[in-house]
Structures are given as structure tokens and as C-alpha cells.
């Protein structure tokens, strides 16, 4: 498990710039939100998900996530068909906060073009550089707000 500037960003996952992660499980991909996202957003109030069987597209919004009075987006890291939804999130969406890479997984996609689409996601050193940029951006904005 990689710890990047205090955020857990596991090495075996792929990431997109909208803070969702993808875990390859054969032809399927398990999807969730990163530790960085959950800490930034605060406790999750509700997750509005597509239905099983729906088609989703890499880089497109496939769900909504509410924290505070803010409705954010879940961007699909890969294209394919929604194969499974985490029903436990209905009762307690804060599982995304408590265990973002475990019990807080959001959905599973039967990927349609995995090999080529994985190249569009970040892994390893690129993740570190990305988080560094995000932290720097947040710090600059905080300074601006003062």
C-alpha cells in the first residue's frame, strides 16, 4: 500500500483524475473513490448509482455522490456494463469514508475495452505526481481564501 503525502493510494490500483480507482479482477473492474476524495468530501450522505446492466463509458459521469450540501460526480474509470452494485452503501454510504478500498467499493464493471483503456489511467509514479499537484492546488486555494 503506497502512502503518498499521508493519503493511502494502493499500488495495485489504477486511478483517474476524478478520484475514482479501478481494480482489475479478470475481465471485470471494481470501482471506488480514493482516500484523497473521501477526506476532501467529508462523510458521504448518499450515492446515486446506475442500474445493473447499464452501459458506462470511460471518463463519463456514471453516478452522483452527495456529501454536505454538495452533489459531486462518480466518473467511470473504464467502459463496459455495470455488473454489480455495492448494496451495503444504501444503508451506510460512509463505508466509502471508513474503508475506501475495501467495504466502500461502489460498483463492478464488466469491461469492454480494458487493455486499451487502462493506458488512459494513472499508476505508480504518475499517481504520486498527481496527488502532489492536487495538494499544491488545494494549498494555493487555501492561501487565496485568506
Amino acid at each position, binding site marked *: 500500500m503506497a502512502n503518498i503525502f499521508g493519503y493511502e493510494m494502493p499500488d495495485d490500483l489504477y486511478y483517474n483524475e476524478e478520484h475514482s480507482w479501478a481494480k482489475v479482477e479478470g475481465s471485470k473492474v471494481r470501482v471506488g473513490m480514493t482516500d484523497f476524495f473521501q477526506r476532501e468530501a467529508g462523510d458521504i*450522505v448518499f450515492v446515486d448509482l446506475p442500474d445493473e446492466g447499464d452501459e458506462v463509458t470511460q471518463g463519463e459521469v456514471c453516478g452522483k455522490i452527495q456529501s*454536505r*450540501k*454538495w*452533489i459531486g460526480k462518480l466518473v467511470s474509470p473504464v467502459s463496459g456494463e455495470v455488473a454489480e452494485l455495492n448494496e451495503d452503501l444504501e444503508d451506510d454510504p460512509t463505508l466509502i469514508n471508513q474503508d475506501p478500498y475495501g467495504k466502500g467499493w461502489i460498483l463492478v464493471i464488466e469491461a469492454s475495452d480494458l487493455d486499451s483503456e487502462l493506458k488512459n489511467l494513472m499508476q505508480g509514479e504518475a499517481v504520486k505526481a498527481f496527488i502532489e499537484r492536487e495538494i499544491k492546488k488545494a494549498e494555493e486555494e487555501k492561501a487565496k481564501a485568506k
Partner: protein
Amino acid sequence: MESWRLIQETERLKTTWEGLSVDDTLPLAIERFGSPPILHLYKFVPSAIVGRYQDIFAALKIERCKVLNIEINRRSTGGGTVIMGPEVLALGFGINVDHPRINSGSVEAIFRSVSRALIEGLRTFGIAAYFRPKNDIEVKGKKIAGLSAAMEGKKALLFHTSLLVSFDMGILTEIMNTPLIKLQDKGYSCFSERLTTVSTESGRRVEVEEVMDAILKGFEKTFSVGLYHSSLSEEERSIASKLEKERYKNPEWIFSHRHPRARMGIGRIKATGGLLEIYLSLLGAVIENIYITGDFFTTTEDLNKLESSLKYVRCEENKVRDAIISVWKPNLIYGITPEDLTKAIIIAKENQLRL
């Protein structure tokens, strides 16, 4: 100087489907047509508008709204019920999340940056307002406006604000279901003690149109832009018409069941400082609203600070205690400790009933 669009509507009160469909068009105009940021200022007919993922049946006394001719609807941004009408300024604001004049460092930073424009506008009336995390604008410990937001598409944002210019607080307990419904008198005072209006704070009767002008100037000054009068283009108008039909006139949208479970509970304990009563609304696992009451001594500002720190926090003992401690100072509530408060909140959670 950069120019932003202003859609200012003063000629008549807007129905909920008119106002909300125009608001939803703002981020889409930015996302699809590259429009500059758009500020929409208007007034609604008397109405009660719930948040995108709120249980409308749990939030409102729907039959009572019908009798009183209060329109009900559901907006596309988060948060709880807002009561709108001729004396409340409605504000929709669409902007790209990466716009250089927005502090996009965090959700809170974005709320703060839009708040700055509203705070600047309120200064016109001699009102010293400030941002109260997580989503409110307060004056001397009382809420005067709330902010909610939603991301549309990839990068566009919609903000909603309702700013109380004058307001009949009595209507709140009449049409809203709150944990306080069983205690009408206390419910009323709990609301009225925690809310204020532009008229109250400025000590004179202020018209909504005056506030509109002050707010738009607040936007111009805060963001160093010029606002020019605008209306929806033909393409934008057709999006608004579609949204009006698909969302705001559609019972499936208004009475949507896509929401977390709403519950409420009451917790009472006897502490050294007196009786402590907690009225709690839960949205799924998090606290939606909390009222701390009892026969103890404190200030409205401190109570509001405490209550705000607990909103949208997972209702679990350690998280509740941490939230309280984050704003606690000695004798914040005389004779009551953070432990007492935590205990009373957890009792309220355990006593919860489904709404």
C-alpha cells in the same frame, strides 16, 4: 474586464418549475456552449423546495402545503428544505469549477468563494455576515443564507442560495416535519432564534430588489468582473423547457425515492448545568440537522457553531465527539461537557424513528 452574464427577473414571481429549470440550464450552458459564468436572481411564488436527495414525504407536510397554496418541488442541488417566496431572494449561479476566480481547492473552498460575494453584498446594508462552515452564511450567530451545489457534466457547477430578506418564521413549523414538531412552541423559538433576515439585521424594511442589486454588485467586486443583462438563448431555452417537463413538472422527479432513509430522534439527559435536550434528524448514516436545547446558559452563536459542526457528520460516538471538540472552548455551555453532549446525541440516535 471580464464579463459575466446576469439574468435578473423582477417582473413577477416565478413558479418552481420556471425558476429551477432556468437554474439547471446555467451549468449546461457553460458545459455545452462555453457560456461565461451566469448569475440568476429572482423570486419564487410561495414554495417549499427540498434537496435533490431528500425524502419529500419525511421533510414536508404535503397536505398542509396544498391547503396553504404552497408549491412543492425538488431542486437539483444538495441539502435540506428551503422555504421560498416573495420575501426571499433566490439565486442560481453557474460556473466552471476550474474558473480562475473560484477557489477550487476543496468543496469548502468553493462554498467559501461564492459566499464572499454574498457577504460583500450584505455589507451594503451594514450587515457583517460571515461564512459558517459547512454551508451557511451567518450574522451574529444566526443563519441568513444557505448554500448548496451540484456538479453538472464534467466541469460545470450550479450553486443555489436562498437569502432571507424578510420572512414569516411561523410558516416553517407549519409545513415542515422536523424533530421539533411535537413541541410547537419550542420548535418555533428554535427556528426563529437560529435564523435572521436582511430586514431584521438592518433595522428597516428592505425590498428584495434592493438586495438583488447589492448582491450583483457584490459579485462584480468580489470576482473583479462586470455583469451584463442577459437572457437565455434559444438553444438554452429549449434545454430549460425540456428540464421543466422532465424534472420540475414530473411527479417522478418531485416525489423521487432516490434518497437516504430519513429518521429523527430525541435525546435527553440531566447534566450539571441543567436539562440537555437533543433533537436530531438523520439522513442515512449522517446528521442532517440537530437542535441543542435545554435550560442551560450559552449564546446563540455558540450553539449555532456547535450545531453546524455536527451537520453532515456520521452519527457515531467518536466522530460526534471529535466534531464537538473541534469547536469546543471552556464553558461553551455552562455546566455541560462534550461528553454530556455526545451522550445525549447518541441517545437521540438510539431513539430514532423512521419519518
